[in-house]
Structure formats: C-alpha cells, structure tokens
C-alpha cells in the first residue's frame, strides 16, 4: 500500500490531493501505467511524464526508480518556488 500525492495541476486534473494505492508496481513508471489505465482523468494527468516530476518519500526521484520500501510517492509539475 502506497500513499500517492498529487500537486498543482496534477492534483486538479486527477481531482484529489492524495489516495492510498494498492499496487504491485516495481517502478514508478509501472505505477504510472497502472494509474493511467484506471480512468481518463489519470490518463490526462500522466499523458506527458516528461512534464512531471516525482518524489519518493519526499525526495526527488526518477520514473525508473524502484518502489520497494517506498511509502509515499508524489507527482507534480516542475516546481516554481522562490
């Protein structure tokens, strides 16, 4: 069971800020494929993963990172702080 968080327009497209996901995905990319297969709003949010960033347990990571041991995954667009 992984906690999946969405921020900014990813959150808006999917329509919720976070959810618990039961998954056997090995990598972040696998998880993204599972989510995209769920519903059009997920497919829309994840249409272009090059436009997205991912954090694993609150550290920036990559889409080919393994999910083993990860409790929290967050998807969001490039950050615009400062």
């Amino acid at each position: 069971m992984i906690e999946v968080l969405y921020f900014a327009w990813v959150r808006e497209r999917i329509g919720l800020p976070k959810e618990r996901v039961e998954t056997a995905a090995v990598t972040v990319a696998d998880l993204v494929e599972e989510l995209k297969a769920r519903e059009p709003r997920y497919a829309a949010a994840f249409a272009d993963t090059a436009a997205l960033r991912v954090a694993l347990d609150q550290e920036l990571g990559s889409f080919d990172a393994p999910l083993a041991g990860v409790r929290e995954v967050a998807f969001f667009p490039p950050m615009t702080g400062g």
Partner: protein
Amino acid sequence: MSVRVQAEPFDPGAELAGFARGRRDVGAQVSFAGIVRDDTGDLKHMEIEHYPGMTEKAIAAIEAEAVARWSLKDSLVIHRHGRLAPGETIMMVATAAAHRGDAFAAAEFLMDYLKSRAPFWKKEVTGSGAGWVAARDEDEDALGRW
C-alpha cells in the same frame, strides 16, 4: 541556519534586522526578497501550493549544501504559501559571511535551487481566469552554473 515555511505574511526588513546580529565575524549580509508582481494590472492574487513535510526538508538540504560550499556564518530562508496579493513578499533568503563573495554566491545558489528544487507551485488568479505558472527553462538552466 533557519527555515520557515508559513502562510502568514512577514516583514523582510524586520527579519533582516534580527538576522546574524551581535556577531563580530560577519562583514557581509546579502538578502533577496521575492515579491508578487502584477505587470498587466490584471492579477487578483497568487496562490502558492506546497508539499508539507517535503518543503522543509528540501529547503534544509539546499541550505546545508550552501553551507558546505561557502563560508557562511548564518543563513535564513522564509517562504510563504497560500494566497498572496500583488506587492506581497513571497519569500526571502539572507546570508551572512565574512566577505561579500561568499554571501552573494550563497544567496544566488539558494535562490536558484529554491526556484526549481523546493516543492512550491504558483498559480495566478486574474480577472480572466486562473493558471499555473510554468517553470522557466532559464531557471532550470541556472542550476548548471553551480
């Protein structure tokens, strides 16, 4: 070294007045303040979303990197989230060092990394609608110089 992430407004001048005070080894202080601009006159407000938990960690890591690279005596990062009106201060950084070179470089480094590596997202709400601010390529490119 300190980091504050908050919804409440703050006064950069007052923060600076209290920063690195009473030290005899500080010869240079640099501060940066980021302010909500409204070039078109159409901005109602800005909304800043962040990732609670990760935000503080990410900023602390950026600050630790700055301290490791430059001879800093002190540093400060304050970043707001939530709703901000035009003219309000979004965030500030301050650095203190013996010499100006370290203070300037560390402040610019902090800003470059906060822009692109701290989990904040800005949304502009205007008279004609709302939209997320797109990351600028030049902000990503700026990281390459460090």
